[in-house]
C-alpha cells in the first residue's frame, strides 16, 4: 500500500466513554421514537375504518405534526446536550429488558450521544421538511393517509436504528427501515415496475442483512453480549481475526443498506417510489445507515487494518461507479441516484480511513443530507410541473418558469460539486485531503470523482434549466405551490450554510469522544490540495458546458455512443452480473426442487380435482402410487441415515 503520510501526529486512542444514566430532559428522548410510531399506528390501523373519514382528511397533517413534534424533542435534547461537559454526553436510558438468558442481556435502551444527536436532528429535521413537501406533492393521491403512515413508520424505525444501544435493537430498526423502504418503493404498486423495484430492493437488502445478522451472532458467541458499548470494550481483547471477521460482516450489511458495490443494484430501481421517498429514504437518511453502522462500530474497525481497507476500497469503487452511472442517465432521478451512490462512496471511503476520517464521513453525510434532499425535492418539483416526465431531454429552459425551484436547485448543485464556500466544498475537501494523507490511490479516486461529479451535475443543470425549450406539446410547466417551495428554500439555505459545522473544527471536536481523533500530515500544504480540487472541478464543469450547452441536445438519446456511455446506461451491467450469478441459478434451484417435489407430491393435489370426477378407479391408482413414492423416499432416507451414521463411525 502506498502511503503519502510521512508523520502521524497525535494518534490519540479513544478516550474511555462511560455512559451516564438519563435524567431531566434526556429521560424524554424516547419520545422522538414514540411520537411517529404512535402516529404511524393510528394512520395505518385506521386504514380500514372506512374511506373519507376524518383520518382521510387530516391524516397527512397528523403525520406531519408527529414528525415536527419529534424534531422539537430532538432539538431540545440536543441543546441540553450542548450544555453538558464532553465527558457526560453519552447518555443511556434503559426502557425495559428485552431478552435475558443467563448472563446475556438485551435491554431496550436509548443510547443518546453526540453521534446519535446529530442523526436525530438530521432524520427528524429533513424528515419534517419532506413531510411538509409531501402535503403538496401527494395532494391528489387517494391513498395519502397510508403514505404518511409509512413515512412516520420509516422515521420511527430509523430513529430506533440510531438510538439503539445494542446491536440487536439496531437490527430491529434496520429491519424496520428496510420494511418501510420496501413499502414506499412499491407504493404505486399498480405500476409493475414499482412492484418489481420494491422486490429487488428487498432481496438485495436481505443479502446485506445476512451479514449484519451473522456479525451479531458472532459478537454474541465471542463476547456473550451484543451491547454496542460492551462489544467495543471486549473486542480490544479479542483476536485480530475476530475483529476482521466482524468488520467484514458488518461491511456486508452496510453495503446492502447503503447501496455500495457489490450490492448497489437496487438503488437505481428504487427511484420508482414517490419522489419525497427518494429524497428522504434513498438520499438523505436510510441509505446512509451503512455509514452510521461503520462509524458506530469504530472500536471494531480500529483493530482491523484489513476490514478498514475493505471499507475504503468499497467506498472508492462505489464513488467512481456511481459517478459513471450518473453521467449516462437521462432520467433526472436516476442521475441523482447514481450521484447518491457516489456520494455515499465518499462517506464510506472516509470511514475506511479510520479515526482520521470518521468525523468527516459524518460531516459529509449531514451536508449531503441537506443538498441531496434539496435536489431530489427540486427534481420532484420539476416533475410536478412537467406532468411527471422524468426525461431530462424533454426539459430545458425551466429557469424562467420555475424560478424558486431553479435557484434552490442551483444552491444544491453548487454544494454538491464543491463550489468554494458552499457546504459540500468543506466536507468533500476534507475527505479528499484525509484520503491523500493516508493512501495516495484513495485520494486520487476521490479527486477524480470530484471532477466527474462536477461534470454530470452540470449536465443535469444545463439539460434541465438552460438551453432551448424541448417540452412536449401538452406540458405547461409552472412553479410549484408554496407548501413545496418553502421546504426547498430551507434546504437550500442549509446546503449553502451547512459548512458552518466545520467552523473552528466544531464537528470533529464534537464527535471526537465517539469516533476518536487522528490527524495525518499531508505531504504538501492543504491549500495546494484544495486548489487542485477546485481546478479539477472547474475542468469538469467546463467540459460539461462545452458538450451540452454549446451543442444541440437531441430529443431522444443517441444510440451510436461510446462503449462507456452504453455501460453507464446499463448500470455498468450490475443487473446482468446479478442475474447470471444469483438469479438464474436460484430460479433453476427452485424450479428443480419444485419439480422433484411437484412430480411426487403436488401431482396429488393438482390431480385432486380430476380425481374427484374420475371416480374410484383413478383414485385407487393415484393413491397407491403416491404413498409408494413417499414410502420409497422414507426407505431411501433411512438407508442414507444408517449408512451415514456407520460411515461417520468408521471414519
Amino acid at each position, binding site marked *: 500500500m502506498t502511503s503519502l503520510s510521512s508523520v502521524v501526529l497525535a494518534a490519540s486512542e479513544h478516550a474511555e466513554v462511560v455512559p451516564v444514566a438519563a435524567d431531566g430532559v434526556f429521560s424524554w428522548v424516547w419520545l422522538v421514537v414514540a411520537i411517529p410510531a404512535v402516529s404511524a399506528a393510528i394512520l395505518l*390501523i385506521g*386504514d*380500514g375504518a372506512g374511506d373519507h373519514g376524518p383520518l382521510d382528511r387530516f391524516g397527512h397533517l397528523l403525520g406531519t405534526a408527529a414528525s415536527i413534534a419529534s424534531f422539537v424533542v430532538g432539538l431540545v435534547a440536543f441543546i441540553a446536550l450542548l450544555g453538558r461537559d464532553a465527558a457526560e454526553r453519552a447518555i443511556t436510558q434503559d426502557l425495559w*429488558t*428485552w*431478552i*435475558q*438468558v*443467563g448472563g*446475556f442481556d438485551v435491554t431496550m435502551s436509548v443510547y443518546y450521544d453526540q453521534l446519535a444527536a446529530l442523526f436525530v436532528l438530521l432524520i427528524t429535521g429533513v424528515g419534517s421538511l419532506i413531510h411538509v413537501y409531501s402535503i403538496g406533492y401527494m395532494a391528489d393521491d387517494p391513498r395519502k393517509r397510508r403514505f404518511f403512515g409509512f413515512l412516520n413508520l420509516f422515521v420511527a424505525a430509523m430513529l430506533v436504528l440510531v438510538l439503539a444501544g445494542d446491536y*440487536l435493537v439496531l*437490527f*430491529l430498526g434496520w*429491519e424496520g427501515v428496510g420494511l418501510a423502504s*420496501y413499502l414506499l418503493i*412499491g407504493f404505486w*404498486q*399498480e405500476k409493475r415496475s414499482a412492484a418489481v423495484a420494491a422486490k429487488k430492493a*428487498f*432481496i438485495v437488502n*436481505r*443479502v446485506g442483512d*445476512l451479514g449484519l*445478522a*451473522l456479525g451479531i*451472532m*458472532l459478537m*454474541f*458467541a465471542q463476547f456473550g453480549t451484543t451491547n454496542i458499548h460492551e462489544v467495543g470494550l471486549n473486542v480490544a481483547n479479542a483476536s485480530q481475526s475476530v475483529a476482521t471477521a466482524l468488520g467484514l460482516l458488518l461491511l456486508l450489511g452496510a453495503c446492502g443498506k447503503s447501496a455500495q458495490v457489490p450490492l448497489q443494484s437496487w438503488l437505481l430501481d428504487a427511484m420508482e417510489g414517490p419522489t419525497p421517498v427518494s429524497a428522504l429514504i434513498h438520499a438523505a437518511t436510510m441509505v446512509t445507515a451503512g455509514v452510521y453502522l461503520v462509524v458506530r462500530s469504530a472500536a471494531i474497525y480500529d483493530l482491523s487494518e484489513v476490514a478498514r481497507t475493505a471499507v475504503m476500497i468499497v467506498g472508492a469503487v462505489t464513488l467512481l461507479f456511481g459517478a459513471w452511472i450518473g453521467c449516462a442517465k437521462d432520467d433526472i432521478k436516476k442521475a441523482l441516484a447514481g450521484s447518491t451512490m457516489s456520494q455515499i462512496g465518499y462517506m464510506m471511503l472516509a470511514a475506511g480511513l479510520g479515526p482520521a476520517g470518521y468525523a468527516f464521513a459524518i460531516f459529509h453525510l449531514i451536508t449531503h443530507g441537506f443538498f441531496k434532499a434539496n435536489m431530489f425535492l427540486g427534481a420532484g418539483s420539476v416533475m410536478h410541473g412537467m406532468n411527471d416526465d422524468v426525461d431530462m431531454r424533454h426539459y430545458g429552459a425551466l429557469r424562467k418558469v420555475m424560478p424558486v425551484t431553479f435557484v434552490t436547485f442551483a444552491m444544491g448543485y453548487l454544494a454538491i460539486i464543491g463550489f468554494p464556500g458552499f457546504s459540500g466544498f468543506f466536507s468533500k475537501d476534507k475527505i479528499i485531503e484525509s484520503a491523500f494523507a493516508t493512501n495516495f490511490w484513495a485520494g486520487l479516486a476521490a479527486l477524480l470523482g470530484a471532477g466527474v461529479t462536477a461534470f454530470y451535475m452540470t449536465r443535469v443543470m444545463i439539460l434541465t434549466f438552460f438551453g432551448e425549450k424541448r417540452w412536449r406539446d401538452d406540458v405547461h410547466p409552472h412553479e410549484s405551490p408554496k407548501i413545496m417551495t418553502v421546504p426547498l428554500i430551507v434546504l437550500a439555505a442549509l446546503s449553502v450554510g451547512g459548512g458552518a459545522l466545520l467552523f473552528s473544527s466544531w464537528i470533529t471536536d464534537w464527535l471526537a469522544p465517539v469516533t476518536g481523533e487522528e490527524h495525518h500530515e499531508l505531504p504538501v500544504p492543504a491549500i495546494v490540495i484544495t486548489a487542485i480540487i477546485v481546478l479539477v472541478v472547474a475542468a469538469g464543469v467546463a467540459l460539461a458546458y462545452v458538450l451540452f450547452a454549446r451543442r444541440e441536445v437531441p430529443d431522444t438519446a443517441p444510440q451510436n455512443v461510446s462503449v462507456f456511455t452504453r455501460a453507464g446506461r446499463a448500470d455498468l451491467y450490475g443487473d446482468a452480473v446479478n442475474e447470471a450469478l444469483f438469479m438464474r441459478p436460484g430460479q433453476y434451484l*427452485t424450479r428443480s*426442487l*419444485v419439480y422433484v*417435489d411437484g412430480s*411426487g*407430491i*403436488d401431482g396429488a*393435489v393438482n390431480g*385432486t380435482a380430476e*380425481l*374427484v370426477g374420475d371416480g374410484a378407479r383413478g*383414485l385407487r391408482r393415484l*393413491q397407491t402410487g*403416491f*404413498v409408494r*413414492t*413417499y*414410502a420409497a*423416499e*422414507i426407505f*431411501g*432416507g*433411512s438407508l*442414507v*441415515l*444408517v449408512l*451415514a*451414521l*456407520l460411515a*461417520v*463411525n468408521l471414519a
Partner: protein
Amino acid sequence: MSAVSVLAAPMAPSPIDAPDIDYATISPLLIVLGVAVAGVLVEAFVPRAYRFVTQVVVAVVGLVAAFGATVWVATDLPEVGGDVPARGGPTAMGALSVDGPAVFTWGMLLLFGVLGVLLFAERRLDGGLSAFTSQASTPPGSTDERRATQLRIEHSEVFPLAVFALGGMMFFATANDLLAMFVALEVLSLPLYLMCGLARRRRLLSQEAAMKYFLLGAFSSAFFLYGIALTYGYAGSFDLGEISTAVSNRIGGENLLLAGMALIMVGLLFKVAAVPFHAWTPDVYQGAPTPVTAFMAAGTKAAAFVAMLRIFYVAFDGARWDWTPVVWGVAIVTMLFGAVVSIAQTDVKRMLAYSSIAHAGFVLVGLAGVVTGTGLTSLSAILFYLLAYGVAVIGAFAVVMLVRDAGGETTHLGRWAGLGKESPLLAIAFTLFLLSFAGIPLTGGFISKWSVFAAAWEGGAWPLVVVGVVASAIALFFYVRVVVLLFFAAPQGDGPTVAVPSPLTSSVVVVAAAVTIVLGVLPGPVLELVQQVGAFVR
C-alpha cells in the same frame, strides 16, 4: 432397577412387586386420559342434542384442570443436585420421568390442546355445523351423506379423540423408557390418523390424507420399533438411563447401536417432518380439517421434539459425536428445502406445511449444537421455540378457517388478495403470525430463532447457523410476498369473504396474537422459565 430390566434379566426369579406409582406427580397425565375416557362415556350416554356441547365442556374443563394440576406439580418439583440444575425425576418405576422439561411440555401441550379444542368446537362458520363430516361412514357425495347433513348429525367423537392424542403427546414427552415411548407414539398417532379423514368439505382429499398419513406413519413406526429392538440388543435395556450407561462404557457391538440409533431417528424425524421424511406433511396438512391441522402442527411437533431431545441427550449422549453429523446434514437439507419450496406454493395450507418443514430444520439446528449447563441451553432454547411456533401456527390456521367462499375454506393464495381491505384485523393477525414465522424482531419467532441459533453457535455449530440465517432470509421473501398480497394486491373478483366466527375462534386468534407479541416484546419471564426447568433427569 426398572421393571423392564427385571423382566429382561434371565436369572434370579425375584418376586414381582406391585408397581409403586406416585399418582400425584403424574396427575395431569391421568386427568387428561380420564377426560378422554369420560368423553367416550358422554358419547355413549348423553342424548344427541346435548352431546356436542357436553363434549366441549368436558374437554375444556378437563384440560384446564389438567393445566392446574401441571402448575401444581411444577411448583412442587424437587430440585436435584448435580453438575447441571435439574428438577424432578423418574417415577412409575422408571417408565416416566417427570422432570422440568417434561412438566413444561405438559403445560405447553395443554395450552395447544385448549386452543385446538376451541377451534374444533367452532360451529358458526359452516351453517351451524362443525368442520367435521356428519357421518364418516357415508360415501362422499352420496344421498346418505346429504341426509346426515340435513339431520345435523355430528361427530362429537373428535373431542375424546383429540384428548386421547393429547394424552399420548404428553406421555411421549415424559417417557423415560423406549417401550413406553413407543406406546405413547401410537396413542398420539392413531387418533390423529382418524381425525385427518373427517373433513366436512373436500372429503376425498381428507380421506386421502388420512390414508397416506396412516400408511406412512405405520411404516415409520416400524422403523422406530426396529430401532428400539436393535438398541435393546446393544444395551440390554429399554431404560434411557441404562442405555446411556451402556453407551458411555462402549460395551462392544457398536454397529448395533448405530443402526438402532439411526432407525429411532427415522421414526422421530418422520413425526417432526424433517427432510427426507417430510413427504406426508403438505398433503396431510392440506387435506385434514383445518382445526386438526392446527392442533397437530403445534402439538405433534412439540411432543416429538421433546422426546427426540430426551432420547439423544439422555440415552445417546455418550455417542454424541456419532449422531451430530447426521443431525447437521438433516438440519441443513430440511431448512433449505422447506424454505425454497415454500416460495413456489400457491396454497395457504401447503405453504404453512412447508414452513413447518423449514421450522423443523431450525429446531434441529438447536439440537445439533449441544449446550448444557446453566444459562441458555439447547434444551431451553428449543422449548421456547416450540412454544412460540406452536402458538403462532395455531393462530395462522385459525385464520385459514375464516377465509371462505361457497365451497368452504378458500386456501388458494390468489383468493386471499385484498384480505386487508375486507377484514383488516384478521389480515393484521395473519401478518403477525407470518412475521413470527419469519423471525422478525418484536415477535416471538425472532426471540426463538435467536435463542436457538445462539445456543447452536455456542455449541460450535456455526456453519449450521449460517445456513439457518440464509434459509430464514429465503423464507422471509415468501412471507413478505404474502403480506403484500394481503394488503396491496387487487382482489380477484369479489375478493375473499371472511366468515364471522363465534367467540371461540376469535378468542383463539386473539390469544395466539397476544402470546406472539408478548413473547417478542417481553420474553423475559418465559425465557426465565425455560431456563429454570433445567436438564432432563434420567
